[in-house]
């Protein structure tokens, strides 16, 4: 599960980082968290609650993000506050020891069932199949979205499919990684891969690899130190990001290329 969940979250993060969907991604992942806690409080399966909330949030924030002249920053800030309040409210109202509820905050890879694993495997197949089938469209949209729309590429369809996939990834990885930290595992490996490569295909592979590495290493450390795995996974992932930023080949590359570009401007 650590390998699978880490790689799926990492690959998902490529969309979040390159399409600048950070706020949207944060809202979807925290909505899943709130949905799972509310379901738990109501006595329903948390997986179903998380799935419904994340898919609901994904389909609600998509049209909001498209609205011209709409302040997405502000709207996402409000939505984020509301879903976090709902999550805390559900946790507060929960009777008893709240062990299951608390485990949704920090995550618990050790309680993952075979069914959870099968769901995550199916999501991984969907995500990597999506990337393979629509790779050229994903590349065309990156950094030149208006031009892609104008060229007749179905940008909206691909964007919405991506939001739905994010909803699925978050809902199915929630139990293992935890609601507070899953978003970090989505963004950090992709941000790490961005420090290293200029090729999109490699960025997907590296992000998946860094996600899997952080999950396995984090799980191993959390087992030995007897601490929540989600927190350790995210800290390991962040450490890899810092190392990648320090040793990024892109830093040297940009310094070297600065002079020829300058010359071509002048000459």
């Amino acid at each position, binding site marked *: 599960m650590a390998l699978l969940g880490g790689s799926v979250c990492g690959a998902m993060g490529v969309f979040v980082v*390159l399409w600048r969907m950070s706020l949207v991604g944060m809202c979807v992942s925290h909505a899943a968290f709130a949905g799972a806690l509310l379901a738990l409080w109501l006595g329903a399966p948390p997986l179903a609650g998380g799935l419904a909330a994340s898919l609901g949030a994904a389909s609600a924030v998509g049209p909001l993000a498209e609205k011209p002249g709409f302040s997405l920053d502000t709207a996402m800030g409000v939505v984020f506050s509301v879903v976090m309040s709902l999550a805390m409210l559900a946790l507060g109202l929960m009777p008893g020891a709240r062990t299951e509820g608390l485990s949704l905050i920090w995550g618990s890879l050790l309680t993952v069932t075979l069914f959870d694993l099968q769901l995550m495997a199916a999501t991984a197949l969907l995500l990597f199949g999506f990337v393979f*089938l*629509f790779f*050229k*469209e994903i*590349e*065309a949209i*990156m*950094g*030149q979205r*208006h*031009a*892609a*729309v*104008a*060229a*007749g*590429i*179905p940008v909206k369809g691909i964007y919405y499919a991506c939001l739905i996939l994010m909803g699925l990834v978050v809902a199915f990885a929630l139990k293992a990684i935890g609601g507070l930290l899953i978003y970090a595992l989505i963004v950090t490996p992709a941000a790490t891969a*961005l*420090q290293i*490569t*200029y*090729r*999109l295909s*490699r*960025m997907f592979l590296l992000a998946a690899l860094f996600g899997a590495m952080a999950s396995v290493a984090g799980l191993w450390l959390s087992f030995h130190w007897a601490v929540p795995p989600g927190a350790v996974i995210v800290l390991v992932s962040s450490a890899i990001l810092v190392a990648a930023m320090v040793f990024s080949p*892109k830093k040297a590359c*940009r310094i070297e*290329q600065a002079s020829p*570009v300058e010359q*071509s*401007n002048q000459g």
Partner: protein
Amino acid sequence: MNPCLAELRNVSVHYGKRCILNGINLRIEKGDFWTLIGPNGAGKSTLMGLFNGLTPHNGGTVYFKGKSVSSDMLGEVRRQVAHVFQATDLDPKMPLSVFASVLSGTYGRLGLFRWPGKKEKNLAMQSIEIVGLAHLAQRPIGHLSGGERQRVALARALAQEPELLLLDEPTAALDWRAQRDICNAVATLRETFNLTVIMVTHDLNAVFALAQKVAMLRAGGMLWQGGAQEAVNADLLSRLYDVPIQIAHSGERMAALF
């Protein structure tokens, strides 16, 4: 008279109660080079977006190749109309090469579930050569200057093999040399491929140098349209921009002074 490629007939655009364009008529013939000029907020970019359906209209009819542009034929129209936008900032770390960016111009025509082959790759490389960036083909696009990035956008538009090329302020925020490079590249493309071009610009000198026909927009209405030679009129331009404008002559070249 050349055959008509696109036409706006009595087109109006409203955003809520606000009228952006009102009763616009414009006929674009094959091979024309139109420039749209006017003050900020006049509706130039909105008008340009009518030709590929990026701007939804509330009244009148937009025609492309004789057919009324409706929502169900937007994909077909967009594959034949290339649109170059103003230069925007890009992350220098963006994992996208100049070649990959230009190649993406072929993807609209290629359609879903089909991968670019030799034909598309050759087309992309030729487009890069035409805009003079062959030596930068493998460079990450985020490393280019604003002017070079606009030439990449032109190459991407060219790789689309369009019937109509829309240029939305392609020289905005660029230095003099980059502006000249873009203007030269546009002129070369037009001559080589007999492209039909509509360009929105604030650069009157580019209008005088490049355009055959000029449409002047003011407050959502068409103030004037006609030949480029007749558009070089100090009174008309002064009325358009609401500032006194003079025309200076230097040899065969003309320049607007304000």
